[in-house]
């Protein structure tokens, strides 16, 4: 047959209209172009102009159309009619749903607001939900940070006024060496992939530190298959090498960090370990020019890293001395740490060398004049082209806070923070810890809380304790058990509420948090707690309200379900007051708006909160006469002012002479302006303000103009965190607020003001011989927790999850393809399919997170592989450490921040016959939305 070519139309119409909004398929918040045909979603692609994704889009984002049309979408408010956990509901109207909620909430607000525990999961409106909770008056509010990555965030804020991901990013255009630690394949999703591509294009190098060589670690030039929980030790060995060989940036340390600040060394003093300060409370340094004491910020001084100060016979030494004393010890030498970390000493040294060589021998100079906070003008920005990124892998351990601190210390020693080629903050960061709020917990009947719930404790005075010393919060955040729990401890809420420890609650109100499944440790235990009844026959946790868009496992455990819209049907703001989407060169925020209207009886959760607030006439939501301030969430976004001139959105506000940005009055046309600009706003930082931001007075002035703070806030990076020393001092017996005796030793050990490493707690308890393996999860790039499960396209990529075993374990146990294994921890066991993976730390096994699903949830068929072969590792992890016989409940968390220590888990494995399906298995839930169709051939256009 001769070649014959049909005529085809190579220019078909693409869509009737493109509407630009913000993705919500994960936490990345990319800009998307939603193509519509006949008013229906036809195709989703990345928005080229958007600061986050610059046009690209990941698998999740492109699959949004399947999420939006998922059969698992809830259809109307639900009232429970069967026993809790059965999934039996009746659909009710919104008037009735809101009345039920108000009838439950209003009496507790009037009597004791702390009887409400309001926790939100992957909430992107935390500045709003916290405002609601604060005005309701309960101290019991937090989002999911406590079980996610608070160690990373808090260590960054305390150490350098910002952390990774939302707070900062590598200088993608200039960095020559990127080192990533414990980064699975998610946060920051698209920007990291874009950045990796750019580094490789320029011939730069990437070092991946992760027990598992998948995803980003697979494309890294060097792989460090570290033993879980030892990252801090590895980092300190690099620090040891750099200090030993003098490869640290002394000028940077002297000028911009508290390395020269003088520390009291009198062991008998109540000031021991605290900074020497002047009468204005400014930390003091010795000026190398004069040899005399000077406040750290005095103009013209050269802070000395070496000289000591004798005052009243008591030596005060610079922080640098304390660092030398600690990190030059042989215990941090590569040889000493090699075995524990599972990394050869030579390789540790080679990495230290490559970091030093790149930082110092490949120095970058940008000719841009800038003036620092001591008034000195510099002709150039000097750059150290070494950058770092880290995420949950290093933070979800009981030594995670100190490990994250150690990593920031390494960055700072290399002089590679806020310099060209290094790590850069994104506005509104950097922000010194001093101007963050402290925690607030004082609840009074009928009144708002005395301040914002979450904050950064500076010492024992900021703990969330009642007058009798008992925890004020249901999650026990900001107590002696974890004094600096900046994001709360969502993973402890249900467990504590069930135990009535520290007190009982009445209503548990949650949003977007699948706590009866993948978002909890000890999943079966949590299900039991949610359904447990007291002697009176009533549920121990009396009432549960839950909001979600989808028929998740948690829906089945609610008494009242408030169905949320999809992300394409709602208003949202990605606010600078919250977790913004800025880039290092620009402040940016964004909105979501209903690009399509809901086709069912659902409402955006934030609008529902406004409606509840209006019904209860919550302060902050009503005018003096009791009339509502805000109609819905969109109205709040435009008209709310956190303080005069500062609102949720920075773009297109109203100034005295037209439009203004950052500061300004509410503008009724603001949302239209955002929509016509593609759903986002960006304001670029002037070039001479782009680096050295914490000390650059040009940047500081720009930040004040934008409204990030009201006066310039230059500060020093805190290699030594004095706040931690305040907690140690209390544990040593100083001060009025004293920890319980059983915690003194632990506080002294773990709240060290200089980064340390100690073995994770689970290792202490689960004898290494009995449970010789580490077990981890990672999130797959194409799937994000349970959100992707009901997505017909994404679940074909990850429909089930094997347990990946390293070669040693595979061979020792004689595993073969298709085998199953029983994996046990000190807490429980699971029986799951296994697969071999050679590119894996030899003592570590792992699986994908949250692929396993409960039967009946997510509108999936009973035969769905998520329920038959998929599984959760969560069953092996308890929210409490095993009993120590002291009658106390010790949470499985970091002792500083309370971060859930997911990755401390240790297990053993044995080959077993294949069961019918993975174990444990659970009874099928009744689906309130039925099941999905048997076939999809999705085409919107004619």
């Amino acid at each position: 047959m001769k070649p014959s070519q049909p005529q085809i139309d190579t220019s078909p119409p693409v869509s009737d209209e493109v509407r630009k909004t913000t993705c919500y398929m994960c936490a990345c918040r990319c800009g998307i172009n939603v193509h519509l045909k006949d008013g229906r979603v036809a195709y989703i692609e990345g928005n080229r102009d958007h600061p986050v994704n610059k046009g690209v889009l990941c698998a999740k984002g492109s699959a949004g159309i399947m999420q939006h049309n998922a059969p698992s979408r809830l259809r109307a408010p639900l009232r429970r009619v069967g026993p809790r956990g059965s999934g039996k509901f009746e659909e009710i109207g919104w008037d009735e749903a809101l009345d039920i909620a108000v009838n439950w909430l209003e009496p507790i607000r009037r009597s004791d607001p702390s009887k409400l525990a309001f926790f939100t999961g992957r909430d992107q409106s935390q500045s709003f939900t916290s405002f609601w909770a604060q005005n309701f008056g309960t101290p019991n509010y937090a989002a999911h940070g406590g079980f996610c990555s608070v160690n990373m965030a808090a260590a960054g804020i305390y150490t350098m006024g910002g952390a990774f991901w939302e707070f900062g990013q590598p200088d993608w255009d200039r960095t020559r060496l990127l080192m990533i630690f414990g980064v699975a394949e998610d946060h920051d999703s698209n920007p990291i992939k874009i950045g990796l591509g750019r580094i490789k294009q320029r011939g730069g190098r990437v070092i991946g530190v992760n027990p598992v060589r998948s995803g980003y670690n697979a494309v890294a030039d060097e792989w460090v298959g570290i033993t879980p929980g030892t990252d801090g030790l590895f980092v300190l060995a690099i620090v040891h090498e750099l200090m030993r060989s003098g490869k640290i940036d002394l000028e940077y340390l002297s000028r911009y960090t508290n390395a020269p600040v003088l520390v009291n060394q009198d062991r008998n003093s109540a000031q021991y370990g605290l900074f020497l300060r002047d009468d204005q409370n400014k930390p003091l340094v010795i000026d190398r020019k004069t040899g005399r004491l000077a406040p750290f910020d005095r103009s013209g001084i050269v802070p000395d890293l070496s000289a000591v100060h004798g005052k009243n016979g008591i030596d005060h030494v610079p922080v640098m001395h304390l660092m030398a004393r600690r990190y030059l010890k042989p215990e941090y030498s590569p040889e000493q740490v090699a075995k524990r970390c599972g990394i050869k000493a030579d390789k540790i040294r080679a990495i230290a060398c490559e970091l030093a060589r790149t930082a110092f021998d490949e120095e970058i100079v940008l000719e841009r004049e800038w003036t620092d906070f001591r008034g000195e003008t510099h002709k150039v920005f000097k750059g150290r082209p070494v950058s770092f990124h880290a995420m949950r892998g290093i933070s979800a351990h009981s030594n995670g806070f100190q490990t994250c601190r150690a990593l920031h210390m390494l960055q700072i020693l290399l002089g590679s923070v806020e310099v060209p080629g290094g790590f850069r903050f994104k506005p509104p960061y950097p922000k010194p810890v001093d101007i963050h709020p402290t925690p607030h917990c004082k609840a009074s009947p009928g009144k708002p809380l005395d301040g914002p719930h979450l904050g950064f404790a500076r010492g024992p005075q900021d703990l969330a304790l009642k007058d009798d010393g008992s925890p004020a919060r249901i999650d026990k955040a900001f107590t002696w058990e974890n004094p600096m729990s900046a994001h709360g401890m969502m993973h402890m809420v249900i467990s504590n509420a069930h135990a009535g420890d520290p007190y009982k609650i009445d209503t548990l109100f949650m949003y977007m948090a699948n706590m009866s499944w993948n978002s909890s440790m000890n999943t079966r235990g949590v299900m039991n707690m949610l359904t447990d009844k007291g002697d009176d026959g009533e549920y121990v946790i009396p009432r549960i309200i839950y909001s979600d868009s989808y028929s998740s496992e948690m829906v089945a455990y609610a008494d009242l379900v408030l169905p949320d819209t999809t992300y394409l049907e709602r208003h949202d703001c990605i606010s600078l007051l919250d977790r913004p989407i800025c880039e290092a060169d620009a402040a940016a925020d964004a909105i979501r708006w209903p690009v399509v209207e809901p086709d069912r009886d659902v409402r955006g959760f934030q609008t529902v909160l406004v409606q509840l607030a209006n019904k209860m006439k919550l302060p902050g939501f009503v005018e003096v006469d009791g009339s509502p301030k805000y109609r819905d969430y969109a109205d709040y976004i435009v008209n709310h002012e956190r303080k005069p001139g500062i609102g949720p959105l920075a773009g297109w506000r109203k100034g005295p002479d037209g439009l203004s940005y950052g500061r300004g009055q509410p503008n009724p046309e603001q949302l239209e302006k955002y929509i016509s600009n593609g759903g986002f706003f960006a304001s670029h930082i002037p070039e001479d303000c782009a680096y050295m931001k914490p000390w650059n007075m040009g940047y500081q002035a720009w930040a004040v103009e934008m409204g990030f703070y009201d006066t310039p806030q230059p500060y020093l990076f805190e290699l030594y965190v004095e706040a931690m020393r305040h907690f140690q001092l209390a544990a040593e017996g100083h001060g009025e607020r004293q920890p319980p005796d059983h915690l003194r030793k632990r506080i002294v050990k773990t709240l060290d003001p200089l980064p340390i490493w100690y073995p994770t707690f689970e290792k202490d308890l689960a004898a290494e011989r009995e449970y010789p393996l580490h077990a981890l999860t990672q999130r797959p790039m194409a799937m994000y927790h349970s959100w992707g499960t009901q997505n017909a396209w994404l679940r074909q990529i990850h429909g089930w999850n094997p347990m990946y075993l390293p070669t040693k374990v595979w061979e020792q146990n004689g595993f073969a393809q298709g085998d199953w294994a029983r994996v046990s921890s000190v807490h429980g066991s699971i029986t799951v399919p296994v697969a071999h993976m050679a590119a894996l730390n030899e003592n570590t096994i792992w699986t994908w997170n949250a692929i396993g699903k409960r039967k009946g949830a997510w509108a999936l068929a009973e035969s769905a592989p998520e329920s038959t072969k998929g599984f959760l590792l969560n069953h092996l992890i308890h929210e409490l450490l095993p009993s120590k016989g002291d009658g106390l409940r010790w949470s499985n968390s970091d002792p500083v921040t309370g971060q859930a220590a997911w990755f401390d888990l240790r297990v053993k494995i044995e080959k077993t016959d294949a069961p019918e399906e993975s174990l444990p298995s659970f009874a099928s839930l009744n689906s309130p939305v039925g099941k999905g169709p048997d076939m999809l051939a999705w085409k919107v256009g004619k």
Partner: protein
Amino acid sequence: MTALPEKTGRKLGLAIDLDTCVGCHACVISCKGWNTENYGAPLSDQDPYGDASGTFLNRIHSYEVQPDFGSAQVVHFPKSCLHCEDAPCVTVCPTGASYKRIEDGIVLVNESDCIGCGLCAWACPYGARELDLAEGVMKKCTLCVDRIYNENLPEGDRVPACVRTCPAGARHFGDFADPESEVSKLSAERGGFDLMPEQGTKPVNKYLPPRQKDLLDEIDAIDVLAPLLEIKKSRNSGFIKWLDRALGKF
């Protein structure tokens, strides 16, 4: 049987960088989205909420490589039609439905002539064709022929959906007949290779190999560290003395 054109004007195809592909599946889903809504029948899914199986024009496979020495490596390998010059899927087609375009070399299926016999899928050594079970026609990568010339799209978007969306920039589109094109130069620089050249299909798409990895495992650390060893004393007092001297320099 269907004949191939003797020569095509251009040779449009993809250069896929295996050094950069992180295996995120963005291209897989973007492709599914565009090609479900556009050219030909939608890409259907059977039992989409149970034991799902659907039609995809592009899939990513991940392989482990264990070198003789050193750590195992993982390579992500995106696979779609390679638009071969000697495409066996075309010559085997009994109805002329499969064809290679004269002007640009894109291999397409004319769905109205396709009888769903599956011979082309058998003939393709790469497994790059999938029979859509709902429509009963053969589906394959079209190189987004309805995007790359589409005057309803902004000029910068006239590339295949997979290329436009790839976050890591691992996919490049262009004309391999033009030695000056970006893809030709990239392929030349990076040693772009043919997949299974022994099959004689002359694929147009090229794969760029992963760069050498784990160099630090090979390095003699003592030599490398030598320039670092400015001070030998690891004791604290030695460090402080060095500090003092070093500070004196600025």
